């Protein structure tokens, strides 16, 4: 399958979901189908290069893996959203991927930045301003997108000019300055975290997960695309040191903010900021292992945020006690994975870094542990709030009183025909065993709770399986990261 066909399928999926959102069963079926089709399309998409207007588009192995994971998580978020009453944001979980696919495959930094920022701007439309006619987090996020895109483009121009005058190293320094500002703003790296809270106040949890967990890492992809084209950007500048400082700052600030936060949007974003700090530090090592660990961290962050968002959306949509308990359990698993406390791959990558700090600088080590403790406390407080608001058992709905027979002839005829249909159906059902009849009735009445339960169980099982199979993920990450241009 060619990239253009994959793009067309993405457009079709987004349009179909956007239209199907009005009727809940259709939205659910469409979400499941669209996710399956997109995953199949991504897996069968050819890795060959395509030329268009002098630009090259190629789906590299790591990009394909990322796309597969991202579309699967977007699909899970869409399925979870389809259970709820408010399904306005359903299509937006896929709209952005149309342009993000361009950002992921193009070999041109400028086009990549425009595509990435356009995808983020599309997400702004999915946000819900809290006050009429006032600038809030959504509007300021849009302003930020424009400003940081400008900074990234100027930084790229400096990189472009450097080979013409290779003795002028100040060009590289200026490039790093502008690129750090631009990326720092968009990734909300410390100290540019101010926009994160107001933005998440106006954003539904699935959109937060899509924006932070799936959209933000594309910025790092573009940065390393640029480094692959101009390796001196990494060799002859302080980019790695800036990333370490930004990463440490993000971990500490994110942990401290989590400690005092009870709003789930802000809590998710600050906890995600802590995980992003680890990604940056892993990347700053500049080795294959560091990059592979960063890839795993990015995946773990996206998975955790998506799982947390999906469980919250399901718990809000379905007022069923056991579904709420299941959602709570999955939320805790997602939170633990985000902190890096689930045994397995998360723990390995996180502790690998922590032990390195323990050996070099104990103060940093303990401060990082304190930040992780802050995230844990924030999540625990939220879980306690959740437990307090769990719904009581809903009593079975009583049968409604029979309606009086209609008076007009057409209505009577319809009434008679319906009676015959029901009678025929009842006689047919008598042949079916009583237990199967009961099960069918329960499924019809509680299909949302049933499918939501299945989804939550699958998510929980996946996190556990993912955690206990570290070698599988690490080998895959090492194999795909080794093919990146800057590593080569």
């Amino acid at each position, binding site marked *: 399958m060619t990239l253009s066909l994959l793009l067309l399928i993405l457009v079709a999926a987004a349009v179909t979901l956007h239209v199907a959102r009005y009727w809940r069963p259709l939205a659910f079926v469409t979400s499941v189908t669209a996710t399956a089709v997109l995953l199949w399309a991504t897996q069968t998409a050819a890795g060959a290069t395509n030329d268009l207007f002098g630009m090259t588009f190629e789906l590299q192995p790591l990009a394909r893996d990322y796309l597969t994971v991202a579309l699967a998580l977007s699909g899970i978020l869409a399925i979870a959203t389809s259970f709820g009453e408010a399904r306005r944001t359903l299509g937006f979980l896929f709209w952005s991927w149309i342009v993000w696919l361009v950002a992921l495959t193009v070999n041109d930094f400028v086009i990549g930045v425009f595509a990435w920022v356009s995808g983020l701007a599309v997400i702004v*439309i999915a946000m819900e301003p809290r006050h009429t006619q006032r600038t809030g987090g959504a509007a300021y996020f849009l302003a930020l997108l*424009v400003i940081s895109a400008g900074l990234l483009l100027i930084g790229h121009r400096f990189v472009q000019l450097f080979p013409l005058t290779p003795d002028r190293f100040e060009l590289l320094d200026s490039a790093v300055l502008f690129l750090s500002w631009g990326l720092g703003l968009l990734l909300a790296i410390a100290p540019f975290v101010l926009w994160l809270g107001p933005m998440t106040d106006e954003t539904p949890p699935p959109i937060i997960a899509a924006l932070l967990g799936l959209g933000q890492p594309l910025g790092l992809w573009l940065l390393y695309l640029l480094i692959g084209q101009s390796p001196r950007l990494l060799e002859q500048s302080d980019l790695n040191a800036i990333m370490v400082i930004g990463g440490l700052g993000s971990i500490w600030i994110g942990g401290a903010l989590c400690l005092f936060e009870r709003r*789930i949007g802000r809590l998710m974003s600050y906890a995600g900021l802590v995980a992003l700090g680890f990604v940056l530090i892993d990347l700053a090592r500049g080795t294959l292992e560091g990059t592979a660990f960063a890839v795993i961290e990015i995946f773990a962050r996206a998975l955790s945020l998506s799982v947390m968002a999906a469980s919250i959306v399901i718990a809000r949509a379905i007022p069923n006690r056991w579904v709420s308990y299941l959602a709570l359990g999955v939320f805790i698993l997602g939170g633990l994975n985000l902190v890096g406390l689930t045994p397995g791959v998360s723990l390995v990558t996180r502790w690998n870094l922590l032990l390195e700090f323990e050996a070099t600088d104990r103060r940093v080590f303990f401060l990082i542990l304190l930040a992780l403790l802050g995230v844990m406390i924030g999540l625990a407080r939220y879980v306690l709030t959740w437990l307090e608001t769990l719904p009581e058992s809903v009593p079975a709905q009583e049968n409604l009183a029979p309606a009086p027979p209609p008076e007009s002839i057409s209505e009577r005829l319809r009434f008679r025909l319906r009676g015959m249909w029901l009678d025929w159906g009842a006689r047919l059902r008598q042949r079916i065993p009583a237990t199967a009849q009961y099960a069918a009735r329960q499924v019809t009445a509680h299909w949302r709770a049933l499918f939501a339960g299945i989804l939550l169980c699958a998510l929980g099982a996946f996190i556990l399986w993912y955690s206990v199979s570290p070698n599988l993920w690490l080998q895959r990450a090492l194999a795909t990261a080794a093919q990146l241009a800057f590593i080569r």
Partner: protein
Amino acid sequence: MPSLNDLARAFALFGAYELELGLLLAVGIVVLVSDWRVSLVALAAQYVLVAILLSTLIPLQIAAVRMIAGGLVALMFYITARRVQPARRRQREMPSPEARVLTPRAIFWTNFPFRLIGLALVAVGVITASDQFVLLNAPLLFWVTGLWLAMGGLLTIALTRDALKLGMGLLFFTSGFGIIYLSIDNSLVIYALLVIADLVIALAIAHIASAPAHFQGRRRGEM
């Protein structure tokens, strides 16, 4: 029907002095005046003046595209403002507590003298910065103009509490950035992408300005 040559002749009437004065006034109006109609006129005028300025860097036909995009942006903002403003008037007339909560207090966070001082400081900052530092040897006219528009836009973004006004500030910023970037890299791809970006920004701002508020009495995200 006026041809492209007529447009070129009309553009030739504007010298650097007139352009600078026009853009100075446009930024001043957007920062200082609260009325959306006057600000919208200033935004449209800014697009025309920037197109004239850019026609010295890129072919006239291509520079005129920015003018057309500006017209579309102004139209989008006009329709949005017309939709939003009557609702605002009705809310002011409604005595209910919810309407009072939802009614915006003013377009700007600060009063007129504060904005005037802010604008003067920005002007001084632009003059000083352009005197001491030039980005990648950009021509002075483009550097000063671009910096002035970008900084004026940022000032508007910082001072306003109205989404439409913020959008105007954002579009002033993109215009300024476009001038600076095109003066250091004469790339038509960037130019085209900036024009598209203006339209996307206008669309998003129109959505934000006209979206119904979700005022639930509790903070979003709480169970």
